[in-house]
């Protein structure tokens, strides 16, 4: 009798208490906070892509000669390629640690939609590893003698193109997470998908450089980004399920 009453009481508590079930928003916030804390604890690693970008940007004047006009002409495209290459190593390990320590299995078991968690991870990844690259663009632009009037267009193009690349890369990263080796594989898989992104971003920068209207390629990038925000997490979730299942 007492036991029944006890269980009834428990039921009432379980049904009535909102804390019993974490909301999707709460899960995303917790995930974001966890990723930020982890990134902060290993903040030395955050500088590696920046260092890589600076080194590559510094190599170009050595290889091509320090002619300012030549550098100004190629700077926009070179910086785009540098950003894509600097993103690659970090993209590869987006889900690897979580797969190894079993976190991904908890993601699959969680009541929150897997795609939403994947999107949160992409956002955290972009904020911690890619955004610093965009922030140092003025410095890199100065190194390569990028015209100052082009710089805002380049930054807007990067702000649209890098989330798009991160979303595409998250799908590939989830696909490659279960593979034995994925170093060059990631580059091989990302290249075909990155080509249109680079074309439109470089198109906007080149148009701005020659004084032409540059809105259209930026609009294309924005449209692709909107599409990718909706579709890429779904594909990423499907890829994560393949990676986790034995």
């Amino acid at each position, binding site marked *: 009798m007492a036991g029944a009453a006890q269980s009834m009481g428990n039921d009432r508590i379980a049904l009535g208490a909102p804390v019993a079930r974490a909301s999707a928003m709460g899960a995303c916030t917790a995930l974001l906070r966890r990723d930020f804390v982890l990134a902060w604890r290993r903040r030395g690693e955050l500088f590696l892509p920046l260092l890589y970008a600076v080194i590559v940007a510094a190599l170009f004047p050595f290889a091509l000669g320090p002619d300012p006009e030549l550098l100004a002409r190629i700077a926009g495209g070179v910086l785009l390629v540098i950003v894509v290459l600097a993103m690659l190593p970090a993209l590869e390990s987006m889900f690897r640690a979580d797969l190894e320590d079993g976190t991904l299995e908890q993601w699959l078991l969680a009541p929150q939609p897997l795609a939403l968690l994947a999107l949160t991870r992409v956002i955290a990844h972009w904020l911690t590893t890619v955004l610093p690259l965009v922030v140092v663009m003025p410095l890199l632009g100065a190194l390569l003698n990028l015209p100052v009037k082009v710089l805002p267009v380049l930054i807007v193009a990067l702000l649209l193109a890098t989330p798009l690349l991160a979303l595409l890369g998250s*799908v*590939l990263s989830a696909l*490659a997470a*279960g*593979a034995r*080796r994925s170093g060059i594989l990631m580059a091989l*898989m990302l*290249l*075909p998908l990155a080509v249109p992104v680079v074309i439109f971003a470089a198109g906007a920068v080149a148009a701005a450089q020659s004084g032409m209207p540059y809105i259209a390629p930026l609009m294309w990038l924005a449209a692709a980004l909107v599409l990718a925000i909706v579709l890429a997490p779904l*594909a990423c979730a499907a890829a994560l399920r393949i990676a986790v299942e034995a």
Partner: protein
Amino acid sequence: MLSPPWVKGAAQPLPHNGWAGVLGECQWKWGRIAERPGISENMSRSYVPHFMHWLGSPPNFYRFAGAWRPWLMAAALIAGAIGLYGGLVLAPPDYQQGDAYRIIFIHVPSAWMSLFIYATMAVAGLIALVWRVKLAEVIAMECAPTGAAFTFITLVTGSLWGKPMWGTWWTWDARLTSELVLLFLYLGVIGLYNAFEDRRRGARAASLLALVGIVNLPIVHYSVQWWNTLHQGTTVDFLDPARSSIAPSMLWPLLVMALATHLYFFASLLGRTRTGLLSLESGKQWVRALVDGQPEQATGAPT
């Protein structure tokens, strides 16, 4: 060739026949169609699914593929010989390009195949992902090397054609670039598949990559219409033949060559799938029976 058990004898009468059912049955019993009244009634409700399920089993597909492959390959060789003769000998020289245009009879069918095989791979990959059909996984993965080969042939022949016509081996034109991207997509699928220790997981991951990459297909196909580039525009338009700008004397060898490459692809796919099934199913009962010398392996061991 073995007949499936459900067409043998009258013990298992077929409840619904229809055109789809007839098509399925044609491969097994030619003579029985005439005996069936009302062929178009009752479009098959259970016949084709039966056939597909029967074919989806690896040992059955292994025998089916072994029986069809030599015929398809022979038909491909004959069609290829006719198409090449028609294209290289019978077709008149182009008024502008002279005899140099004749590479079209290799280039264009290969280009069509590079898209067609990718679509085939993506459809098989979708089936593999949704219904977990083992055979579909093997088929999707065995499509990729052939598709990559046709894409490579397209790029090489295009390059050979471009040198005398455009004066350059390569140009960063929209269609050339998107075809190159298609090659990298194929290589990515092959690479991802081989990076997994568990081949079935690798096949599913690579199938998903193939589905993601399918956005490139319309870009390749419409690139010459969307962008005004060095590559010539659409010459053969199947949807609107009036818009085609190719002479009939040049068109028919081209279509015969396209038929030959399709036949070759299917023949090669069947052969590759046989090998893939053997290595995936090695250790299973039917493979062991095959190795032990059952009569079935007389249909020709895959090379």
